[in-house]
């Protein structure tokens, strides 16, 4: 069964999956006394695209925010690229260099131009010279389709353009893994496609991606695997075909019947 699933995944994205780069082992997290993540177990392979879906408040966002230590988990282990996430400052710094993240609200820096947004981390974290960073930034802007907006401020761009800049900003760090936290939820309907197209292109290029989204179409089309979460638990993990056509868990079936 697993082999079949894996074959399908290979067919879909036209590249082979590698070793595990994200491993969550019995991860538990509380906000105060509220239990947000309950015994989450999860493994993501290199070059794999994993889509996390689930109702609001199910802990999807918290999970991927734990992966680059924006949130601290209290129990269990999260191992990213072979590094265990702890209070160790150098580990945290290393993981954040290797993991890019795209946010729901874009979180572009409004006081910096698009170009400065993209070059900032390259210069201060990767220590690249300014010229090289800018060259790199222009390439990425071309890749996401908005090279002409480089000198503008984020406030002058549309939501879709801003989100594409945010993707470019994350890519500029040459991350091994990209995390997407509901990248299209804050967008007007006609702008969603332009962002999803960029993400699809990224998936095709073999980037390891973990995506929290409500875009079922994207999940069906691009994902290697779909993870369904509810009430802080991982309810079901499976290939998109299997997941959407023939969900196993009662909760999953209920969820899918409500949204489809």
């Amino acid at each position, binding site marked *: 069964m697993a082999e079949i699933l894996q074959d399908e995944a290979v067919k879909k994205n036209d590249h082979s999956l590698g070793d595990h780069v994200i491993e969550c082992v019995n991860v538990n997290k509380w906000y105060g006394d509220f239990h947000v993540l309950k015994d989450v177990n999860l493994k993501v392979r290199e070059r794999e695209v994993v889509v996390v879906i689930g109702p609001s408040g199910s802990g999807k966002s918290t999970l991927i925010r734990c992966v680059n230590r924006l949130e601290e988990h*209290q129990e269990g282990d999260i191992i990213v690229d072979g590094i265990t996430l702890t209070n160790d400052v150098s580990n945290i710094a290393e993981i954040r260099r290797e993991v890019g993240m795209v946010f729901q609200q874009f979180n572009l820096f409004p006081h910096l131009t698009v170009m400065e947004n993209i070059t900032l981390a390259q210069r201060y974290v990767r220590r690249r010279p300014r010229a090289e960073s800018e060259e790199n930034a222009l390439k990425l802007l071309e890749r996401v389709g908005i090279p002409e907006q480089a000198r503008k401020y984020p406030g002058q761009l549309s939501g879709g353009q801003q989100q594409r800049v945010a993707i470019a900003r994350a890519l500029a760090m040459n991350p091994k893994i990209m995390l997407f936290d509901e990248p299209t939820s804050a967008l007007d309907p006609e702008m969603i496609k332009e962002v999803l197209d960029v993400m699809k292109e990224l998936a095709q290029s073999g980037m390891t991606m973990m995506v929290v989204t409500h875009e079922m179409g994207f999940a069906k089309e691009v994902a290697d695997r779909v993870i369904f979460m509810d*009430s802080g638990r991982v309810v079901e993990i499976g290939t998109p075909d299997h997941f959407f056509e023939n969900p196993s868990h009662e*909760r999953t079936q209920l969820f899918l019947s409500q949204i489809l």
Partner: protein
Amino acid sequence: MSDNAQSPPPGSDDVFVLGTNDLGGGRPRPVNDALLERFVRTPAFIVASYAVYLILLIFFWNPIEAALGFVPGGFLFGTIGILPLAGLTFVNSRTRNARTGIPFYRDLLTIQETIQLVFVAVIIGTMATLILNLNDNLAESGLTINFNVLARDFGTEVSEGPDPRADWTFLQSIPVVGETLYNVPIFTPDTYFRALAAGFANTLRVVWLSLIFSTILGVALGIGLLSNNWLVRNVSFGWVEIFRNTPLLVQLFFIYNGVIRLLPARPGDALSFPGSIFLSSRGFYYPAVLQTPTSNYFYFPLIAGAIIGIFLWRWRLQVNERTGVPAHAFRYFAASTVGLGLIGFIVAFAVGGTPVLFEPPAASGFRFEGGASLSGEYLGLFLGLVFYTSAFIADIVRAGIQSVPKGQVEASRALGLKNFQTLNFIILPQALRLAVPPLINQYLNLAKNSSLGIAIGFADLYTVANIANNQSGQTVVMFVLLMVTYLGLSLFISVIMNAFNSTLRLKSR
């Protein structure tokens, strides 16, 4: 359902189905099982250990100093001061790192705690150095800090205020505004403490009246700023800009030296207003309300009427809520107060004469006889504070009212609410929510600005403390007293206003 579930093949990492339908089952947050670590991190333990440490330190200080062989400087104090905290950090770091296996220099928490330790050490060290220096230097100048100075004899006069040695007669006449804080023209308090107390009473005397009047004037100006009458709006605007953009001290000098002091000094030449009110360069004179043997027959019913009125008010609101009958709460309140007051007044007459006796001031030679008065300095400071603060309050009121969206007023009109109801139920609750916090700040500023009375010779706390300092040289004592008193006053005002603010929030949530 679970029998239908296709369980993933064992050993597979890639697919998974939760074995149960019970998605609840959260656990409480795990408590740290290292009991020692938990105990050591409690604030009570930290405080207690510090207390023990300090007591031990004081107890054994002489042997320690002898052992050291020199008098420790500030930075040694800094180091000594953080020892328990440093120990705590060390223990924490060890227990934590023993579990996670991170070297301490890479542990985020340890790094933070170390930064904090260094900071605290530097602060304690600097403070200790400065205080040691201060102590030595003061001793060298023969000005050793001595809090007993407060009991010493204060040889100078205080120009006005309640004399703490006099009978506290003002308590008898609280209903009457002018006499609330019984005011003696010039007196000699016997100790520093009493002089300072008189100064503080003067500060309060000027602060509370200015608070009330600056609020009234400020609200009026704020409404004026929003008037749809062009002239009223611009006159208010001009007033606000002029008083906001010039220093209070300049205003005080102008009002006092440029206006009040240039008035005629002799009572015979004083400006007189209807109702036996006089204004001269010495001060403001107005009729005093005297106590008579029958006063209580009038005052007690009046107060009782007001109290009953408050209950009536609340009862009417309840009736209104239950039945929908218009509340007319204020009418009931007014009827109760005025009615009982009137009855009391008549009774007082029946029993024996008028309950309220006015005593107008009368010019006689170089001063006024009888009546009540406010000194020229008081008047100057009062006017300055009112004009200055009201300009700021006006702007706050304007901003508060403007913050209520126009749609709110339109919606309320569309519902058929009258102007008064719109103001009372829609605009004010929303405007006040925004206006009260900055208003608190302005009240605090007013209280603090009252210390500028020294510039025009008003005998407030700061002025008296300054005299006391010049006499005794006890600068540090006076500074500590000033600081504590003004901080206390600020705290008092902000506690009261914050309580008001929170009831407001509760009501208009």
